[in-house]
């Protein structure tokens, strides 16, 4: 009969109205500033740089290889390499970024920089409350603002961080072994050793870290400067 469809619809809205007072399914609002939706473990917003030491600038894992700069689809990363080198977490002499800027107002949160980084140095943060009245001052972030500790990374992405920590631990173990061998041999030139280490670094698992079966030694997280500088 005419009108039954309309009445059925009205019953449905009435159910929702009444339900909103007792059924959480029918009142889905999360009152944002006070309540928050739990962050998903995989959630990503903007990249940050991981550092391992107390001093963020000393412990940056980034070696300014500029792969992310090249691969970044919207090209929002700007890196200037250093002229000198310093020891990284494995004790190897590496370049470091003098300037590492990310223009958040361009970043598309695609995570490709994270995937292509061979050094586990850049990761995705979950912070989203970044709205700002100042376009250049507020949204162009430099390496000081980008640097966040590995603890932070472990807090926001525990599973991912464990995998990355394990991979780094293997790297460190390898580097230690190599350094030991170097010390024992004492024959090879320092340059030769460096070349080998570089080769080892290049063969490091890239991007497959999430899927490749990684052996899990219960080694501590990458300790910077644990190995003596070659």
């Amino acid at each position, binding site marked *: 009969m005419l009108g039954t469809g309309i009445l059925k619809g009205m019953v449905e809205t009435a159910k929702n109205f009444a339900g909103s007072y007792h059924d959480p399914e029918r009142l889905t609002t999360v009152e944002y500033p006070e309540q928050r939706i739990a962050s998903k473990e995989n959630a990503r917003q903007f990249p940050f740089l991981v550092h391992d030491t107390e001093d963020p600038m000393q412990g940056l894992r980034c070696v300014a290889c500029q792969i992310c700069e090249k691969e970044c689809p919207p090209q929002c990363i700007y890196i200037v390499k250093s002229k000198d080198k310093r020891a990284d977490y494995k004790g190897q002499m590496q370049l470091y970024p003098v300037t590492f800027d990310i223009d958040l107002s361009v970043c598309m949160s695609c995570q490709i920089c994270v*995937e292509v980084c061979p050094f586990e140095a850049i990761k995705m943060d979950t912070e989203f409350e970044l709205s700002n009245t100042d376009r250049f001052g507020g949204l162009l972030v430099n390496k000081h603002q980008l640097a966040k500790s590995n603890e932070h990374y472990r807090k926001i992405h525990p599973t991912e961080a464990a995998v990355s920590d394990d991979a780094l631990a293997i790297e460190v173990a390898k580097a230690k072994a190599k350094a030991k061998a170097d010390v024992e041999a004492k024959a090879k030139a320092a340059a030769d050793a460096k070349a080998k280490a570089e080769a080892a670094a290049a063969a490091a698992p890239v991007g497959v870290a999430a899927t490749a079966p990684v052996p899990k030694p219960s080694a501590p997280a990458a300790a910077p400067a644990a190995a003596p500088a070659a």
Partner: protein
Amino acid sequence: MDGTQFMTFHDLAYDAGKTDFQRKAEVIGVGREGELLEVAMGPQHPSTHGVFRMDVVLDGETVVKLKPVFGYLHRNHEKIAENTSYLGSMPYTDRLDYFCSLTNNWAYALAVEKLAGLQVPERAEYIRLITAELTRVLNHTCLAGFLLQDMGALGTPLMYAFREREKILDLFESLTGARMMCNYMRFGGCRCDLPAGWLAEARKVVAEYPKFLDEFDALLSGNEILMARTQGVGKLSAELAINAGITGPMLRASGVDYDLRKVDNYGIYSRYPFRVPLGDHGDVYDRYMIRMLEMRESLKILEPALKDIPEGPVVDPKAKLRGFRPKPGEAYGRIETPKGELGFYLISDGSPNPYRYRVRPPSLINLTILEDMCLGQTVADAVITLGSVDIVLGEVDR
């Protein structure tokens, strides 16, 4: 110059082009400019689903001419992709049809896999199927909401649709990290494996979804106003639909049985028996109902697929992430996205960037016959006809 002449216009099969356009010219001209009202609906108009413009000529409220105007969201996706690596284009495909980023990913990945000859592991195929069907459900849900919004239902159906959308987006976010722009698929598989507990969550969402569909049906499918508004409006004949290259639910609402999931048998769709609903009238109501039915069929695929999913790797170990350079050649890969056939045509010259990167957007081509469907009807009909085409401007203009 009576209205009836146009009423039958869309029923004619498309015959060799000439007559149609000549008739259009006749319809438009004849010196009635003073009596007719020209309205440019859009690019900012509440019902054009984004920045789309319809230049409408009205006789009273009857549409006598309707010219779609595009390009307000032409953001040069193809040009940018030709200057970016194959991988770098993947996040851009998310932004084509921004409701269905995962099916866009799949279509692009499929084309590249054809170009480079990559195999996809079993588990990845399952994940692709599951995410694609979830995307289909998501898209159709939102479309139903938007269609009703266009019909003036002041947000309630849209709110219910978005309530369900959030549930699926939660799944996407915990799998891929982002709500809308998933950037999840890779050439030869998927980016990462399912997180712990994801399958259980997904099963729960899928199991509860019919409840929402029933609610939506009760709310609107039998509503007299909805039936009166949509039945017999925006009719499209099967012949014209085929000739105009219409795809997706819109084609099937006109009664043509053509679903790429069945025709191309891509992925692992052949393992799941699902039915393809067909309409007989090709009007807005059919398009709406076909989508409602397709959602139920998608759920029928999802339920067993979520049970059957095997263990294993999710990406082809041969696929390279950096320095990916397919051999020179070309490939056209297409899949059935919620809106129709989404194809990617790639020409490789052996460099890291595609030489030519072309998107075959279903939304744009489904708009080809918008004028034919709207002529002789009122503005309100034109609005819901446009709504039933299901366009997303990111894909129309690219």
